[in-house]
C-alpha cells in the first residue's frame, strides 16, 4: 500500500504529460499545462527542505566540533545574509541583495567556471597520450581542432582550419547523433519503466 498510491500518481501524471503532447482536446491541455506548473511549485517549495538540511548539517558540525567546524558558521552567516537582505529589501537593482549577488555570488560563479581553463589544460596534458590507436585518434582530432582554432594553424598550412570545420561538422555530428539517438532510446525505456511502475527502487521500495 505504501507504494501503490505514489505509483498510481506517477502513472497518472506521466500519462497526462504524454497525452498532452498528442491531444489538443480538453481536459489534457488543461491538465498538462497545470501539471508542469505544479511540478515547478513543488520543486521550488522543496528548496526549504534542502536549506533546512544544510543548516542542520552545519549546526551539527559546530555542535560536535567536527573536522573543519570553524568554517560552518561562514556558510550559515552567508545563507542568512542573502535570505535576510532578500526578504527585507527585495531583489530590485541596487538593493543590498542585488549588490551582494552582483559583487560576490556572481564573481564566485564566474571564477569557479573559469577554473575550467586550467582544468582543460591539465586534462589534455594527462589524457592525450598516444597509448593505443583509439587514444591516438582522440588526441589527433583534438590537436587538429585546437590548431584550427587559432591563427597559428593557418600559418602552418591554410587547410588546417578547413580540417577543423570538417572534423566538427562530419565526425562530430555523426558521433553526437549516435549518442543522442541511443540516449533517447534509454530515456523512452527508463520513462516507461517509471510510468508503469516496473522500476520502483527510487521510491525506496523493493523492486
Amino acid at each position: 500500500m505504501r507504494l501503490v498510491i505514489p505509483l498510481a500518481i506517477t502513472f497518472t501524471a506521466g500519462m497526462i504529460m504524454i497525452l498532452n503532447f498528442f491531444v489538443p482536446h480538453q481536459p489534457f491541455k488543461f491538465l498538462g499545462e497545470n501539471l508542469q506548473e505544479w511540478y515547478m511549485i513543488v520543486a521550488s517549495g522543496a528548496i526549504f527542505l534542502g536549506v533546512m538540511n544544510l543548516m542542520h548539517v552545519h549546526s551539527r558540525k559546530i555542535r560536535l566540533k567536527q573536522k573543519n567546524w570553524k568554517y560552518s558558521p561562514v556558510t550559515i552567516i552567508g545563507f542568512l545574509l542573502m535570505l535576510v537582505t532578500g526578504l527585507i529589501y527585495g531583489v530590485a537593482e541596487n538593493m543590498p541583495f542585488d549588490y551582494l549577488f552582483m559583487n560576490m555570488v556572481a564573481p564566485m560563479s564566474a571564477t569557479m567556471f573559469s577554473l575550467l581553463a586550467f582544468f582543460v589544460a591539465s586534462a589534455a596534458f594527462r589524457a592525450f597520450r598516444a597509448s593505443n590507436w583509439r587514444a591516438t585518434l582522440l588526441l589527433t582530432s583534438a590537436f587538429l581542432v585546437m590548431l584550427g582554432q587559432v591563427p597559428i594553424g593557418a600559418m602552418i598550412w591554410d587547410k588546417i582550419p578547413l580540417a577543423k570545420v570538417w572534423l566538427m561538422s562530419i565526425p562530430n555530428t555523426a558521433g553526437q547523433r549516435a549518442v543522442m539517438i541511443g540516449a533517447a532510446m534509454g530515456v523512452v525505456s527508463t520513462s516507461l519503466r517509471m510510468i508503469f511502475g516496473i522500476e520502483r527502487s527510487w521510491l525506496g521500495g523493493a523492486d
Partner: protein
Amino acid sequence: MNWEILGIWLGAIVTLCLYSFLYRDNPFYKFVEHLFVGMSAGYWVIYNIENVLIPNWWQNMFPPEGGFNGIWIIPGVFALFMIARILPKTASLSRLSLGMIVGVGAGLNMVSFFQTNALAQVKGTIFSLASGGVWSIFSSLVLVVGVVSGLVYFFFSKAHTGVVGRTANVGITILMVAFGASFGYTIMARLSLLIGRFQFLLEDWLPTIPRLLGLGG
C-alpha cells in the same frame, strides 16, 4: 564609503581566494567555498520565492484582481507533503509528491527526448549522398556510416564479435574522433572565461589600489 570600489574589492578577494585552490586546499579557499555554498543557497531560496512561488503559485491562487482560485491548493499541498519529510511520522507523505514529480518528469522527457533527440536526428540523417563533389559524397558517407555504426556500438544484447563487433569498432572510433574534436573546440570558450576574470582583476581591480593609496587620480 564608496560602494562601487568595495564591490570590486569583494569580487577580487573572493576571486583570488577561489583561485588559491589551484595550488592546494587552504583556509582561504575553505572560507570562500563555505561562503559560496551558503550565499548561493540563500540566493536560490529568494529566487524561488520571487520567481516561482509568488508569481506562479500565490498570485494564481489569489489573483491580484481579487478572488480565490482553489485549484492552486493542490500544488501547495504537494509541496507541504514534500516538506513533511522533516518529521519521521509524516515522512512517507513525501512519496506522493515524489510520485508526481517523477511522473511529470518521465512523461515530459519521454516525448521531448524522442522528438528532438531521436526523430529530429534521424530526419537529419536521411539525405541523398549524391550531391556535390567527391569530397562531399565522402563526407556524407562518413556521416551516415558514423551514425549507424555508432548505434551498433550501443547494442547491448549482442556480443561485440564478428560483423557486429567490427561495426561497433567503427562506431567507437568515430565517437573518439568526435570527442577529441569537441574537447579541442571547447578550450577556446573556457579560455574566454579566464580572460574575462583576468580582465576584471587587471583592469578593474588593480587600478583601484593606487587610488586607494592616494596615488594618482
